[in-house]
Protein backbone atom coordinates (compact mmCIF):
# COMPACT_ATOMS: atom_id res chain seq x y z
CA UNK A 1 0.00 0.00 0.00
CA UNK A 2 2.93 2.35 0.47
CA UNK A 3 3.52 2.30 -3.26
CA UNK A 4 -0.06 3.42 -3.78
CA UNK A 5 0.20 6.22 -1.28
CA UNK A 6 3.17 7.53 -3.21
CA UNK A 7 1.34 7.73 -6.51
CA UNK A 8 1.58 11.33 -7.64
CA UNK A 9 -1.13 13.16 -9.46
CA UNK A 10 -4.82 13.31 -8.86
CA UNK A 11 -5.57 9.58 -8.69
CA UNK A 12 -6.24 8.73 -5.09
CA UNK A 13 -6.02 12.11 -3.53
CA UNK A 14 -9.34 13.14 -2.05
CA UNK A 15 -10.10 16.67 -3.06
CA UNK A 16 -12.40 19.24 -1.64
CA UNK A 17 -15.65 19.89 -3.39
CA UNK A 18 -18.42 17.73 -4.73
CA UNK A 19 -17.30 15.80 -7.74
CA UNK A 20 -18.61 12.82 -9.70
CA UNK A 21 -18.88 9.79 -7.47
CA UNK A 22 -18.46 11.78 -4.28
CA UNK A 23 -21.66 10.46 -2.69
CA UNK A 24 -20.90 6.87 -3.67
CA UNK A 25 -17.34 7.24 -2.50
CA UNK A 26 -18.41 8.70 0.85
CA UNK A 27 -21.16 6.18 1.64
CA UNK A 28 -19.21 3.24 0.24
CA UNK A 29 -16.13 4.29 2.15
CA UNK A 30 -18.04 4.60 5.44
CA UNK A 31 -19.80 1.23 5.01
CA UNK A 32 -16.56 -0.50 4.08
CA UNK A 33 -14.68 1.10 6.95
CA UNK A 34 -17.42 -0.06 9.37
CA UNK A 35 -17.21 -3.56 7.93
CA UNK A 36 -13.44 -3.75 8.30
CA UNK A 37 -13.66 -2.14 11.74
CA UNK A 38 -16.20 -4.69 12.97
CA UNK A 39 -14.19 -7.56 11.50
CA UNK A 40 -11.02 -6.42 13.24
CA UNK A 41 -12.82 -5.69 16.53
CA UNK A 42 -14.13 -9.26 16.57
CA UNK A 43 -10.56 -10.47 16.97
CA UNK A 44 -10.16 -8.80 20.35
CA UNK A 45 -13.72 -8.38 21.55
CA UNK A 46 -17.16 -9.80 20.91
CA UNK A 47 -20.15 -9.48 23.29
CA UNK A 48 -20.02 -13.25 23.85
CA UNK A 49 -17.79 -16.08 22.70
CA UNK A 50 -19.35 -16.68 19.26
CA UNK A 51 -18.96 -20.47 19.67
CA UNK A 52 -20.38 -20.71 23.20
CA UNK A 53 -23.65 -22.61 23.29
CA UNK A 54 -26.25 -21.79 25.91
CA UNK A 55 -29.03 -24.21 25.14
CA UNK A 56 -31.40 -22.66 27.73
CA UNK A 57 -31.11 -19.30 25.93
CA UNK A 58 -31.87 -20.69 22.46
CA UNK A 59 -33.91 -18.81 19.85
CA UNK A 60 -34.28 -15.65 21.89
CA UNK A 61 -35.27 -12.54 19.96
CA UNK A 62 -33.16 -9.43 19.49
CA UNK A 63 -32.61 -7.42 22.69
CA UNK A 64 -34.11 -10.26 24.75
CA UNK A 65 -30.74 -11.96 24.91
CA UNK A 66 -27.92 -9.95 23.42
CA UNK A 67 -28.25 -7.28 20.76
CA UNK A 68 -29.46 -9.55 17.97
CA UNK A 69 -30.80 -12.51 19.94
CA UNK A 70 -29.57 -16.10 19.92
CA UNK A 71 -29.71 -18.99 17.48
CA UNK A 72 -31.02 -22.55 17.88
CA UNK A 73 -27.98 -23.50 19.99
CA UNK A 74 -28.17 -20.38 22.13
CA UNK A 75 -25.13 -18.75 20.51
CA UNK A 76 -25.05 -14.95 20.43
CA UNK A 77 -25.99 -13.80 16.91
CA UNK A 78 -24.26 -10.42 17.17
CA UNK A 79 -20.99 -12.09 18.15
CA UNK A 80 -21.28 -14.63 15.35
CA UNK A 81 -22.01 -11.87 12.89
CA UNK A 82 -18.88 -9.98 13.95
CA UNK A 83 -16.60 -12.99 13.75
CA UNK A 84 -18.36 -13.97 10.52
CA UNK A 85 -17.45 -10.58 9.05
CA UNK A 86 -13.81 -11.34 9.75
CA UNK A 87 -14.06 -14.83 8.24
CA UNK A 88 -15.87 -13.53 5.15
CA UNK A 89 -13.45 -10.69 4.61
CA UNK A 90 -10.28 -12.74 5.01
CA UNK A 91 -11.53 -15.37 2.58
CA UNK A 92 -12.65 -12.68 0.13
CA UNK A 93 -9.37 -10.75 0.43
CA UNK A 94 -7.29 -13.88 -0.09
CA UNK A 95 -9.38 -14.92 -3.09
CA UNK A 96 -9.23 -11.49 -4.68
CA UNK A 97 -5.48 -11.32 -4.00
CA UNK A 98 -5.03 -14.60 -5.90
CA UNK A 99 -7.20 -13.39 -8.76
CA UNK A 100 -5.74 -9.88 -8.89
CA UNK A 101 -2.09 -10.92 -8.81
CA UNK A 102 -2.36 -13.75 -11.34
CA UNK A 103 -4.89 -11.92 -13.50
CA UNK A 104 -2.85 -8.73 -13.60
CA UNK A 105 0.28 -10.67 -14.52
CA UNK A 106 -1.57 -12.45 -17.31
CA UNK A 107 -3.17 -9.24 -18.56
CA UNK A 108 0.05 -7.26 -18.52
CA UNK A 109 1.91 -10.07 -20.30
CA UNK A 110 -0.82 -10.33 -22.91
CA UNK A 111 -0.85 -6.59 -23.52
CA UNK A 112 2.92 -6.40 -23.88
CA UNK A 113 2.40 -8.04 -27.24
CA UNK A 114 3.69 -11.40 -26.15
CA UNK A 115 3.00 -14.39 -28.32
CA UNK A 116 0.95 -15.81 -25.44
CA UNK A 117 -1.69 -13.15 -25.88
CA UNK A 118 -4.08 -15.32 -27.88
CA UNK A 119 -3.47 -18.39 -25.70
CA UNK A 120 -3.91 -16.47 -22.44
CA UNK A 121 -7.11 -14.86 -23.57
CA UNK A 122 -8.60 -18.16 -24.79
CA UNK A 123 -7.79 -19.73 -21.39
CA UNK A 124 -9.55 -16.78 -19.78
CA UNK A 125 -12.58 -17.29 -22.02
CA UNK A 126 -12.68 -20.94 -20.98
CA UNK A 127 -12.46 -20.03 -17.28
CA UNK A 128 -15.16 -17.42 -17.77
CA UNK A 129 -17.49 -20.07 -19.12
CA UNK A 130 -17.39 -22.09 -15.89
CA UNK A 131 -19.77 -20.96 -13.15
CA UNK A 132 -17.75 -20.49 -9.93
CA UNK A 133 -20.31 -22.03 -7.57
CA UNK A 134 -20.57 -25.27 -9.54
CA UNK A 135 -16.83 -25.47 -9.95
CA UNK A 136 -16.37 -24.84 -6.23
CA UNK A 137 -18.70 -27.75 -5.46
CA UNK A 138 -16.52 -29.88 -7.72
CA UNK A 139 -13.38 -28.54 -6.12
CA UNK A 140 -14.89 -29.09 -2.66
CA UNK A 141 -15.46 -32.74 -3.53
CA UNK A 142 -11.84 -32.93 -4.61
CA UNK A 143 -10.11 -30.97 -1.82
CA UNK A 144 -12.76 -31.24 0.87
CA UNK A 145 -14.55 -28.18 2.17
CA UNK A 146 -12.53 -25.47 3.89
CA UNK A 147 -11.05 -22.02 3.57
CA UNK A 148 -8.56 -23.14 0.92
CA UNK A 149 -11.27 -24.58 -1.31
CA UNK A 150 -13.24 -21.36 -1.10
CA UNK A 151 -10.18 -19.19 -1.76
CA UNK A 152 -9.00 -21.26 -4.73
CA UNK A 153 -12.47 -21.60 -6.21
CA UNK A 154 -13.25 -17.88 -5.98
CA UNK A 155 -9.73 -16.70 -6.79
CA UNK A 156 -9.28 -18.80 -9.90
CA UNK A 157 -12.49 -17.46 -11.38
CA UNK A 158 -11.38 -13.89 -10.78
CA UNK A 159 -8.21 -14.36 -12.83
CA UNK A 160 -9.96 -13.81 -16.18
CA UNK A 161 -11.80 -10.76 -14.85
CA UNK A 162 -8.56 -9.11 -13.80
CA UNK A 163 -6.73 -10.33 -16.88
CA UNK A 164 -9.23 -8.67 -19.18
CA UNK A 165 -9.41 -5.38 -17.33
CA UNK A 166 -5.63 -5.22 -17.08
CA UNK A 167 -5.04 -6.20 -20.70
CA UNK A 168 -7.44 -3.57 -22.02
CA UNK A 169 -6.05 -0.82 -19.83
CA UNK A 170 -2.44 -1.81 -20.47
CA UNK A 171 -2.95 -1.88 -24.23
CA UNK A 172 -4.17 1.70 -24.09
CA UNK A 173 -1.01 2.67 -22.24
CA UNK A 174 1.21 0.80 -24.69
CA UNK A 175 -0.16 2.97 -27.49
CA UNK A 176 1.01 6.17 -25.79
CA UNK A 177 3.95 8.10 -27.12
CA UNK A 178 5.78 8.02 -23.81
CA UNK A 179 6.13 4.28 -24.29
CA UNK A 180 7.89 4.99 -27.58
CA UNK A 181 10.10 7.46 -25.76
CA UNK A 182 10.96 4.74 -23.24
CA UNK A 183 11.86 2.41 -26.08
CA UNK A 184 14.04 5.17 -27.51
CA UNK A 185 15.75 5.12 -24.12
CA UNK A 186 16.59 1.47 -24.73
CA UNK A 187 14.18 0.08 -22.15
CA UNK A 188 12.84 -3.44 -22.56
CA UNK A 189 9.30 -4.74 -22.29
CA UNK A 190 9.52 -5.81 -18.65
CA UNK A 191 11.06 -2.55 -17.55
CA UNK A 192 8.50 -0.47 -19.44
CA UNK A 193 5.71 -2.55 -17.91
CA UNK A 194 6.96 -1.87 -14.38
CA UNK A 195 7.92 1.78 -14.85
CA UNK A 196 5.22 3.02 -17.20
CA UNK A 197 2.32 0.62 -17.62
CA UNK A 198 1.57 -0.60 -14.09
CA UNK A 199 1.60 2.83 -12.39
CA UNK A 200 -0.82 4.12 -15.01
CA UNK A 201 -3.31 1.28 -14.67
CA UNK A 202 -3.06 0.89 -10.89
CA UNK A 203 -6.20 2.97 -10.41
CA UNK A 204 -8.30 0.75 -12.64
CA UNK A 205 -6.99 -2.35 -10.89
CA UNK A 206 -7.90 -0.90 -7.48
CA UNK A 207 -11.44 -0.18 -8.66
CA UNK A 208 -11.71 -3.75 -9.87
CA UNK A 209 -10.40 -5.04 -6.54
CA UNK A 210 -13.17 -3.33 -4.58
CA UNK A 211 -15.88 -4.53 -6.94
CA UNK A 212 -14.52 -8.06 -6.97
CA UNK A 213 -14.29 -8.04 -3.16
CA UNK A 214 -18.05 -7.56 -3.11
CA UNK A 215 -18.44 -10.46 -5.57
CA UNK A 216 -16.12 -12.60 -3.45
CA UNK A 217 -18.10 -11.94 -0.25
CA UNK A 218 -21.27 -12.93 -2.03
CA UNK A 219 -19.74 -16.08 -3.50
CA UNK A 220 -18.14 -17.02 -0.19
CA UNK A 221 -21.52 -16.70 1.51
CA UNK A 222 -22.96 -18.95 -1.19
CA UNK A 223 -20.25 -21.54 -0.68
CA UNK A 224 -20.67 -21.51 3.12
CA UNK A 225 -24.41 -21.79 2.66
CA UNK A 226 -23.73 -24.98 0.72
CA UNK A 227 -21.31 -26.17 3.40
CA UNK A 228 -18.19 -25.62 1.31
CA UNK A 229 -16.73 -22.72 3.30
CA UNK A 230 -14.96 -22.67 6.64
CA UNK A 231 -15.82 -25.77 8.73
CA UNK A 232 -17.86 -25.34 11.95
CA UNK A 233 -17.65 -24.01 14.59
CA UNK A 234 -16.15 -20.99 12.81
CA UNK A 235 -19.16 -18.74 12.16
CA UNK A 236 -19.73 -17.59 8.60
CA UNK A 237 -22.56 -15.50 7.20
CA UNK A 238 -23.42 -18.16 4.66
CA UNK A 239 -23.82 -20.92 7.23
CA UNK A 240 -25.78 -18.65 9.56
CA UNK A 241 -28.22 -18.18 6.68
CA UNK A 242 -28.33 -21.92 6.00
CA UNK A 243 -28.99 -22.79 9.64
CA UNK A 244 -31.67 -20.13 9.94
CA UNK A 245 -33.85 -21.80 7.33
CA UNK A 246 -35.38 -24.31 9.72
CA UNK A 247 -36.48 -21.55 12.10
CA UNK A 248 -37.52 -19.00 9.52
CA UNK A 249 -41.01 -18.55 10.98
CA UNK A 250 -40.04 -18.98 14.62
CA UNK A 251 -37.01 -16.69 14.57
CA UNK A 252 -36.81 -14.58 11.38
CA UNK A 253 -34.03 -12.46 12.89
CA UNK A 254 -31.66 -15.40 12.35
CA UNK A 255 -32.03 -15.02 8.59
CA UNK A 256 -32.36 -11.25 8.54
CA UNK A 257 -29.13 -10.53 10.43
CA UNK A 258 -26.67 -12.33 8.15
CA UNK A 259 -28.73 -11.50 5.06
CA UNK A 260 -28.58 -7.79 5.80
CA UNK A 261 -24.90 -8.04 6.70
CA UNK A 262 -24.11 -9.55 3.29
CA UNK A 263 -26.25 -7.00 1.48
CA UNK A 264 -24.69 -4.03 3.29
CA UNK A 265 -21.14 -5.32 2.82
CA UNK A 266 -21.68 -5.88 -0.90
CA UNK A 267 -23.42 -2.52 -1.27
CA UNK A 268 -20.62 -0.69 0.53
CA UNK A 269 -17.86 -2.23 -1.56
CA UNK A 270 -19.77 -1.71 -4.80
CA UNK A 271 -20.41 1.95 -3.98
CA UNK A 272 -16.75 2.38 -3.10
CA UNK A 273 -15.75 0.81 -6.40
CA UNK A 274 -18.20 2.91 -8.39
CA UNK A 275 -17.09 6.07 -6.62
CA UNK A 276 -13.44 5.33 -7.31
CA UNK A 277 -14.23 4.49 -10.94
CA UNK A 278 -16.01 7.82 -11.39
CA UNK A 279 -13.07 9.61 -9.84
CA UNK A 280 -10.62 7.85 -12.12
CA UNK A 281 -12.58 8.11 -15.35
CA UNK A 282 -10.61 10.61 -17.42
CA UNK A 283 -13.77 11.70 -19.22
CA UNK A 284 -15.35 12.68 -15.95
CA UNK A 285 -12.22 13.98 -14.31
CA UNK A 286 -11.76 17.70 -14.58
CA UNK A 287 -8.45 18.93 -15.90
CA UNK A 288 -6.36 20.25 -13.08
Amino acid sequence: MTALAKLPGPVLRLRRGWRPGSAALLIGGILTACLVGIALTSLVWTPEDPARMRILQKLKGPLVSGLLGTDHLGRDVASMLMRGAFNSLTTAFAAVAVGAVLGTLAGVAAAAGSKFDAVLMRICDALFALPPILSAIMLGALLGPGALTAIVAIGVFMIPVFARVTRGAAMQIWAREYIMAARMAGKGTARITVEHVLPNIAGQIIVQVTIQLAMAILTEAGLSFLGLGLPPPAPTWGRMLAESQTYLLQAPHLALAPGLAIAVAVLGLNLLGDGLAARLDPRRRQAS
Partner: protein
Amino acid sequence: MTGPLLSIETLTRDYALRGKGGATRTLRAVDGVSLAVEPGSVFAVVGESGCGKSTLARIVMALDRPTSGTVRLGGDDLFALGPKALARKRRDFQMVFQDPYGSLNPRHSVGRIVAEPLHLLDDAPRGRERRALVARALEDVGLPGSAAERYPHEFSGGQRQRIAIARALITNPKLVVADEAVSALDLSIQAQILRLILSLRDRHGLTVLFITHNIGVVDEIADRVGVMQAGRLVETGPVREVLDHPREDYTRTLLAAEPTLAVLGQRKRRA
Protein backbone atom coordinates in the same frame (compact mmCIF):
# COMPACT_ATOMS: atom_id res chain seq x y z
CA MET B 1 33.83 12.82 -40.31
CA THR B 2 32.81 14.05 -43.71
CA GLY B 3 29.72 13.28 -45.72
CA PRO B 4 26.14 13.14 -44.55
CA LEU B 5 25.30 12.28 -40.92
CA LEU B 6 22.18 10.42 -41.93
CA SER B 7 21.87 8.66 -45.22
CA ILE B 8 18.89 6.61 -46.23
CA GLU B 9 19.10 4.44 -49.32
CA THR B 10 16.18 2.94 -51.27
CA LEU B 11 14.27 2.40 -48.05
CA THR B 12 11.07 0.39 -48.42
CA ARG B 13 8.60 -0.75 -45.82
CA ASP B 14 5.70 -3.06 -46.64
CA TYR B 15 2.85 -3.90 -44.33
CA ALA B 16 0.78 -7.00 -44.82
CA LEU B 17 -2.90 -6.18 -44.63
CA ARG B 18 -5.31 -8.99 -44.03
CA GLY B 19 -8.41 -8.33 -46.09
CA LYS B 20 -11.76 -10.07 -46.02
CA GLY B 21 -11.67 -13.85 -46.40
CA GLY B 22 -8.02 -14.11 -45.36
CA ALA B 23 -6.73 -12.57 -48.55
CA THR B 24 -3.58 -10.62 -47.89
CA ARG B 25 -2.34 -7.63 -49.77
CA THR B 26 0.66 -5.51 -49.06
CA LEU B 27 0.64 -1.84 -48.35
CA ARG B 28 3.88 -0.14 -49.34
CA ALA B 29 4.10 2.61 -46.73
CA VAL B 30 7.57 3.73 -47.73
CA ASP B 31 8.67 3.14 -51.31
CA GLY B 32 12.32 3.39 -52.28
CA VAL B 33 13.12 6.54 -50.33
CA SER B 34 16.70 7.83 -50.50
CA LEU B 35 17.89 10.96 -48.81
CA ALA B 36 20.98 12.37 -47.14
CA VAL B 37 21.15 14.88 -44.31
CA GLU B 38 24.31 16.90 -43.79
CA PRO B 39 25.55 17.39 -40.23
CA GLY B 40 24.21 20.55 -38.61
CA SER B 41 21.39 20.98 -41.09
CA VAL B 42 17.62 20.74 -40.83
CA PHE B 43 15.98 18.45 -43.33
CA ALA B 44 12.20 18.60 -43.52
CA VAL B 45 10.05 15.79 -44.84
CA VAL B 46 6.66 17.13 -45.82
CA GLY B 47 3.58 15.32 -47.00
CA GLU B 48 -0.07 14.79 -46.23
CA SER B 49 -1.17 12.32 -43.55
CA GLY B 50 -0.80 8.71 -44.60
CA CYS B 51 2.05 9.42 -47.02
CA GLY B 52 4.47 7.30 -44.98
CA LYS B 53 6.44 10.05 -43.32
CA SER B 54 5.82 8.78 -39.79
CA THR B 55 6.77 5.24 -40.84
CA LEU B 56 9.98 6.74 -42.19
CA ALA B 57 10.58 8.43 -38.82
CA ARG B 58 9.95 5.18 -36.93
CA ILE B 59 12.46 3.33 -39.10
CA VAL B 60 15.10 6.04 -38.77
CA MET B 61 14.60 5.74 -34.99
CA ALA B 62 15.04 1.96 -35.27
CA LEU B 63 11.62 1.42 -33.71
CA ASP B 64 10.61 -0.48 -36.83
CA ARG B 65 12.59 -2.45 -39.42
CA PRO B 66 12.59 -1.72 -43.13
CA THR B 67 11.58 -4.35 -45.66
CA SER B 68 14.62 -3.38 -47.70
CA GLY B 69 17.12 -0.57 -47.93
CA THR B 70 19.55 0.86 -45.42
CA VAL B 71 19.71 3.62 -42.84
CA ARG B 72 23.22 4.81 -42.06
CA LEU B 73 23.91 7.08 -39.13
CA GLY B 74 27.45 8.41 -38.99
CA GLY B 75 28.51 5.58 -41.27
CA ASP B 76 26.94 2.70 -39.29
CA ASP B 77 24.11 0.72 -40.84
CA LEU B 78 21.50 0.77 -38.02
CA PHE B 79 19.96 -2.53 -39.01
CA ALA B 80 23.26 -4.36 -39.30
CA LEU B 81 24.02 -3.62 -35.64
CA GLY B 82 23.36 -6.21 -32.95
CA PRO B 83 20.92 -5.33 -30.13
CA LYS B 84 23.75 -4.31 -27.79
CA ALA B 85 25.45 -2.14 -30.37
CA LEU B 86 22.12 -0.60 -31.40
CA ALA B 87 21.34 0.27 -27.76
CA ARG B 88 24.77 1.88 -27.54
CA LYS B 89 24.09 3.77 -30.75
CA ARG B 90 20.74 5.10 -29.55
CA ARG B 91 22.36 7.87 -27.54
CA ASP B 92 23.22 9.44 -30.91
CA PHE B 93 19.64 9.77 -32.11
CA GLN B 94 16.54 10.76 -30.21
CA MET B 95 13.02 11.77 -31.04
CA VAL B 96 10.53 14.52 -30.24
CA PHE B 97 6.95 13.38 -30.60
CA GLN B 98 3.84 15.07 -31.86
CA ASP B 99 1.57 15.10 -28.86
CA PRO B 100 3.10 16.83 -25.85
CA TYR B 101 0.24 15.46 -23.76
CA GLY B 102 0.83 11.83 -24.75
CA SER B 103 4.59 11.79 -24.84
CA LEU B 104 5.16 12.49 -21.14
CA ASN B 105 4.16 9.91 -18.55
CA PRO B 106 1.72 11.75 -16.24
CA ARG B 107 2.92 9.74 -13.23
CA HIS B 108 6.58 10.63 -13.56
CA SER B 109 8.19 13.84 -12.40
CA VAL B 110 9.64 16.04 -15.11
CA GLY B 111 13.11 15.25 -13.78
CA ARG B 112 12.53 11.54 -14.18
CA ILE B 113 11.10 12.03 -17.67
CA VAL B 114 14.01 14.15 -18.86
CA ALA B 115 16.55 11.73 -17.36
CA GLU B 116 15.01 8.64 -18.95
CA PRO B 117 17.39 8.35 -21.95
CA LEU B 118 20.35 8.35 -19.52
CA HIS B 119 19.43 4.68 -19.24
CA LEU B 120 21.38 4.34 -22.50
CA LEU B 121 24.65 5.41 -20.92
CA ASP B 122 26.74 2.83 -19.07
CA ASP B 123 28.32 5.54 -16.93
CA ALA B 124 25.16 7.58 -16.38
CA PRO B 125 25.62 10.10 -13.57
CA ARG B 126 23.73 9.46 -10.34
CA GLY B 127 22.46 11.56 -7.47
CA ARG B 128 23.42 15.21 -7.37
CA GLU B 129 25.35 15.06 -10.65
CA ARG B 130 22.31 13.61 -12.41
CA ARG B 131 20.02 16.31 -11.00
CA ALA B 132 22.45 19.00 -12.14
CA LEU B 133 22.51 17.50 -15.63
CA VAL B 134 18.70 17.45 -15.77
CA ALA B 135 18.51 21.04 -14.53
CA ARG B 136 20.98 22.14 -17.21
CA ALA B 137 18.96 20.33 -19.89
CA LEU B 138 15.79 22.09 -18.71
CA GLU B 139 17.48 25.48 -18.65
CA ASP B 140 18.79 24.77 -22.13
CA VAL B 141 15.21 24.65 -23.43
CA GLY B 142 14.13 27.73 -21.51
CA LEU B 143 12.56 26.14 -18.43
CA PRO B 144 13.66 26.67 -14.83
CA GLY B 145 15.76 23.86 -13.38
CA SER B 146 13.24 23.58 -10.55
CA ALA B 147 10.70 22.25 -13.07
CA ALA B 148 12.29 18.83 -12.49
CA GLU B 149 10.32 18.30 -9.30
CA ARG B 150 6.97 19.08 -10.86
CA TYR B 151 4.62 16.89 -12.90
CA PRO B 152 3.61 17.21 -16.57
CA HIS B 153 0.04 18.30 -15.84
CA GLU B 154 1.39 21.49 -14.28
CA PHE B 155 2.75 22.64 -17.65
CA SER B 156 1.22 24.06 -20.82
CA GLY B 157 1.48 22.36 -24.21
CA GLY B 158 4.44 24.47 -25.30
CA GLN B 159 6.24 23.91 -22.01
CA ARG B 160 5.60 20.20 -22.28
CA GLN B 161 7.13 20.16 -25.74
CA ARG B 162 10.17 21.92 -24.25
CA ILE B 163 10.36 19.12 -21.67
CA ALA B 164 10.20 16.57 -24.50
CA ILE B 165 13.01 18.37 -26.29
CA ALA B 166 15.11 18.44 -23.10
CA ARG B 167 14.59 14.67 -22.85
CA ALA B 168 15.66 14.18 -26.47
CA LEU B 169 18.83 16.20 -25.93
CA ILE B 170 20.04 14.84 -22.59
CA THR B 171 22.34 12.25 -24.15
CA ASN B 172 23.83 14.85 -26.51
CA PRO B 173 22.55 13.14 -29.64
CA LYS B 174 23.83 13.98 -33.10
CA LEU B 175 20.44 13.56 -34.75
CA VAL B 176 17.01 14.52 -33.51
CA VAL B 177 13.91 13.42 -35.37
CA ALA B 178 10.95 15.69 -34.74
CA ASP B 179 7.76 13.95 -35.85
CA GLU B 180 5.09 16.66 -36.21
CA ALA B 181 6.70 18.25 -33.18
CA VAL B 182 4.77 21.51 -33.42
CA SER B 183 1.54 20.35 -35.07
CA ALA B 184 -0.36 20.07 -31.79
CA LEU B 185 0.59 23.57 -30.63
CA ASP B 186 -0.94 27.01 -31.06
CA LEU B 187 0.58 29.10 -33.84
CA SER B 188 2.41 31.51 -31.52
CA ILE B 189 3.80 28.60 -29.50
CA GLN B 190 4.78 26.83 -32.73
CA ALA B 191 7.00 29.78 -33.63
CA GLN B 192 8.65 29.68 -30.19
CA ILE B 193 9.39 25.97 -30.42
CA LEU B 194 10.72 26.30 -33.96
CA ARG B 195 13.04 29.11 -32.83
CA LEU B 196 14.15 26.92 -29.91
CA ILE B 197 14.97 24.03 -32.25
CA LEU B 198 16.97 26.31 -34.51
CA SER B 199 18.88 27.84 -31.61
CA LEU B 200 19.67 24.38 -30.22
CA ARG B 201 20.87 23.39 -33.67
CA ASP B 202 23.22 26.38 -33.68
CA ARG B 203 24.44 25.87 -30.11
CA HIS B 204 24.93 22.10 -30.22
CA GLY B 205 25.57 21.47 -33.89
CA LEU B 206 22.46 19.30 -33.96
CA THR B 207 21.15 17.68 -37.10
CA VAL B 208 17.38 17.64 -37.36
CA LEU B 209 15.04 15.50 -39.42
CA PHE B 210 11.80 17.44 -39.23
CA ILE B 211 8.67 15.58 -40.23
CA THR B 212 5.56 17.66 -40.87
CA HIS B 213 2.41 17.98 -42.92
CA ASN B 214 2.62 21.74 -42.69
CA ILE B 215 4.56 23.24 -45.56
CA GLY B 216 4.42 26.67 -43.90
CA VAL B 217 6.51 25.32 -41.02
CA VAL B 218 9.06 23.96 -43.50
CA ASP B 219 9.70 27.48 -44.71
CA GLU B 220 10.55 28.58 -41.18
CA ILE B 221 12.93 25.85 -40.17
CA ALA B 222 14.40 23.73 -42.94
CA ASP B 223 17.55 24.01 -45.01
CA ARG B 224 16.49 21.24 -47.34
CA VAL B 225 13.12 19.69 -47.90
CA GLY B 226 11.82 16.41 -49.29
CA VAL B 227 8.24 16.15 -50.46
CA MET B 228 6.66 12.77 -49.85
CA GLN B 229 3.62 11.40 -51.63
CA ALA B 230 2.23 7.88 -51.28
CA GLY B 231 5.47 6.53 -49.84
CA ARG B 232 7.76 8.11 -52.44
CA LEU B 233 9.98 11.11 -52.16
CA VAL B 234 8.79 13.05 -55.21
CA GLU B 235 10.94 16.15 -54.89
CA THR B 236 14.04 17.04 -52.89
CA GLY B 237 16.10 20.18 -52.78
CA PRO B 238 17.07 23.34 -50.92
CA VAL B 239 14.03 24.79 -49.24
CA ARG B 240 13.92 28.06 -51.21
CA GLU B 241 14.24 26.26 -54.50
CA VAL B 242 11.49 23.75 -53.79
CA LEU B 243 9.06 26.22 -52.28
CA ASP B 244 9.63 29.00 -54.82
CA HIS B 245 10.01 26.90 -57.94
CA PRO B 246 8.31 23.57 -57.33
CA ARG B 247 8.93 21.11 -60.12
CA GLU B 248 6.25 18.64 -59.11
CA ASP B 249 2.52 19.19 -59.41
CA TYR B 250 2.08 17.57 -56.01
CA THR B 251 4.36 20.12 -54.35
CA ARG B 252 2.34 22.90 -55.97
CA THR B 253 -0.87 21.33 -54.63
CA LEU B 254 0.59 21.22 -51.13
CA LEU B 255 1.75 24.82 -51.39
CA ALA B 256 -1.61 25.99 -52.63
CA ALA B 257 -3.41 24.17 -49.85
CA GLU B 258 -1.39 25.90 -47.16
CA PRO B 259 -2.83 29.23 -46.08
CA THR B 260 0.36 30.73 -44.70
CA LEU B 261 0.12 34.21 -43.26
CA ALA B 262 2.14 35.56 -46.18
CA VAL B 263 -0.21 34.02 -48.73
CA LEU B 264 -3.25 35.21 -46.82
CA GLY B 265 -1.76 38.71 -46.81
CA GLN B 266 -1.14 38.59 -50.56
CA ARG B 267 -4.69 37.48 -51.22
CA LYS B 268 -5.99 40.30 -49.09
CA ARG B 269 -3.88 42.86 -50.88
CA ARG B 270 -5.00 41.54 -54.23
CA ALA B 271 -8.62 41.76 -53.26
